[in-house]
Structures are given as C-alpha cells and as structure tokens.
C-alpha cells in the first residue's frame, strides 16, 4: 500500500506536504487536549501493533504479498485525528528504519492511510454499530484497507498526466488509472476481509478488558 520514494512528482507531494502539515498541527493539538495517564499506554500499544502489522508481509497465493495495517482498530478506539498522528509516526519510522515508503511520499501515504482510512472507518462504524456492533467493526476494518488503496491508486494513476516529458513519456510512475485502480483495489478488497476480522477480534478483546 505504501507508495515508495521516486514514484510521485513534486507537483504531487509538495501540496500534499502543505495539506498534511495542517492536519499534523490539528492532530497534535487534539492529542495534547486528550492525553492522560490512561490514554498513553493504550495508544502506545496499538501504535506498536500497527507498526508490526504494517511491517510483517503475509504471502498470498499467486505470488504477491500483503500486510494488514491496524488502522481500523486505531480509528474505532481513538477516532480519526489521533489515528492520523500515530499512523504518520509509524510511516516515518518505516521510511527511516526499513526503507519502506519514503520521506518525499510520506504526506501522501499519511493522508491516504492515516486520515482517509480512519475517517472512512469511523463513518462505517458509526453507521452500523448502533444496530450491529460487530458488523460496524468489520466494516471499519474493511474500509480502512479499501479507501486508502483507492486514494493511493488515484494518486499513482494520475502521475503520467501530471508529470511527463514534452513527447508524453511519464517522468515518475508510468501506469494510468485504468491499470492502477484494478491492480491496487482488487487485492485490497480481499485483504480488507482479513483487516475487518482483525478489527472485530482486537476491539472486542479490548472492550472485555
């Protein structure tokens, strides 16, 4: 799901940095307002879980591999802004320590996964949870996988149109929307089922504690 460095044009990641900076400022304020002795350990553990889930690749039949993210869990437990803050921290660590993702593409990955994913997860959860709690949790996990994938596919697929040479050769990511949308969305729609199940299991477990 992470876009690697070198795939996005500066025309994409510079405005994304401006947008994400505003989001990070608001998220930090929200974090300072809500922080207390009970929130911090829970936030630390679920951030660590998200880091591990995003780092460990699971092989899929057919030769490809995917990873879960834990964003559905974070979104249901802490809401979108705290999720955006901690997912950005996880993505920064992955870029610096593992070389996954990257520093130039950080705001795009953070906005797609941390904000897009968690807002969609919260909306799905709030819509369904009053009547069907578990279905709401499952929807939160599924949306947290699929909505960031759709955003990432659109950003990647627009690159040939945004940055190309005078004779039309793409300068960065070379495939258009007709390729990226199915290539990214179909595996993530399936991965989302696992993410949904994981969200149901982890959040139900946390509520029993």
């Amino acid at each position, binding site marked *: 799901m992470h876009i690697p460095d070198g795939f996005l044009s500066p025309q994409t990641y510079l405005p994304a940095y401006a947008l994400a900076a505003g989001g990070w400022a608001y998220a930090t304020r929200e974090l300072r307002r809500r922080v207390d002795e009970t929130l911090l350990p829970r*936030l630390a553990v679920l951030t660590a879980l998200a880091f591990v889930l995003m780092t460990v690749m699971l092989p899929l039949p057919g030769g490809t591999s995917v990873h879960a993210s834990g964003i559905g869990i974070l979104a249901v437990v802490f809401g979108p802004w705290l999720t955006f803050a901690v997912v950005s921290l996880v993505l920064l660590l992955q870029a610096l320590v593992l070389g996954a993702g990257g520093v130039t593409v950080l705001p795009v990955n953070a906005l797609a996964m941390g904000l897009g994913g968690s807002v969609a997860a919260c909306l799905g959860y709030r819509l369904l949870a009053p009547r069907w709690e578990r279905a709401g949790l499952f929807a939160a996990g599924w949306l947290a996988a699929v909505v960031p994938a759709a955003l990432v596919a659109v950003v990647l697929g627009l690159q040939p149109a945004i940055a190309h040479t005078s004779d039309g050769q793409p300068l960065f990511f070379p495939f258009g929307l007709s390729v990226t949308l199915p290539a990214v969305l179909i595996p993530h729609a399936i991965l989302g089922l696992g993410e949904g199940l994981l969200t149901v299991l982890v959040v139900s477990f946390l509520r029993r504690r």
Partner: protein
Amino acid sequence: MRLLLALSAALLAGTLHAHSLTHSAQPGSAVIVELHYADGSPFSYESTEVYRPAESVPFLVGRTDANGRLAFVPDRSGDWRVRTFSEDGHGGDFTVAATPDSDSSAPSAGLSTVAALAVGLSVIFGLFGIWSVFVRKRS
C-alpha cells in the same frame, strides 16, 4: 548471365548474413540486482529501467526474471540508477555503484526485518514512555 547469377548470390548471401544473430556469454561481467519483498518472495516479472550515471535516457528497459533479478553490463563507472515498479505501486528507485568489468552488487537493504522491528518498537515505546513521565508530572 553468369555475372547476374554471381551478383544475386552475393546479394542473397548478404541478406542471409544480415539476418543471422550472434550471441556471446561473458560470465562475471554483469551487475546482478536481486529484488524481493520483505518476506523474501521475489519481485518477479516486474518492469525495470536502468540508467547510466547522470543520464536521463534509460540504458536498459525490461522486466525482472522469475527470481526477481535483473542484470546489466556497465560500460562506465559511477552510480547507476535502477528504477523498478509493479502496476500495483510497489517498487524502488535506487543507485548501484558499478564499474565496467568488475564485481559489483546492489546496496544491502540495511537492517533485517527483525532488527528493524526491534528498533521501531523501541522508538515507539520509548517516545510514549518519556511522554507519560511528563504527563504524570503535570497531573
């Protein structure tokens, strides 16, 4: 007539010769870059581009093999840029130091996944731990 025959024979030989394909294998002079996902599965059959140092026109365009490898034979020294990408947005853009006719290898991926996990988890728990000390002091 004899002259005509000789001329057409010569022309035919020329055409036939132009269609022949020669090849030679030179073990040891290529740079082999191996690409795989973090879990060790190969980055197979994906698009790759290789650029000479400081050039923007690709030196080589192709795909990785079944084992996620690509190979090129450098004809000058310097940092060769390797770009590789799959349609679903995986890939990389890095440089490989290479010199003609000498051993060379891609830069290592740095920390192993287990070591990177340990470093990342230490940073996360460290940051939240220090923060909780300050929160406790305030309250």
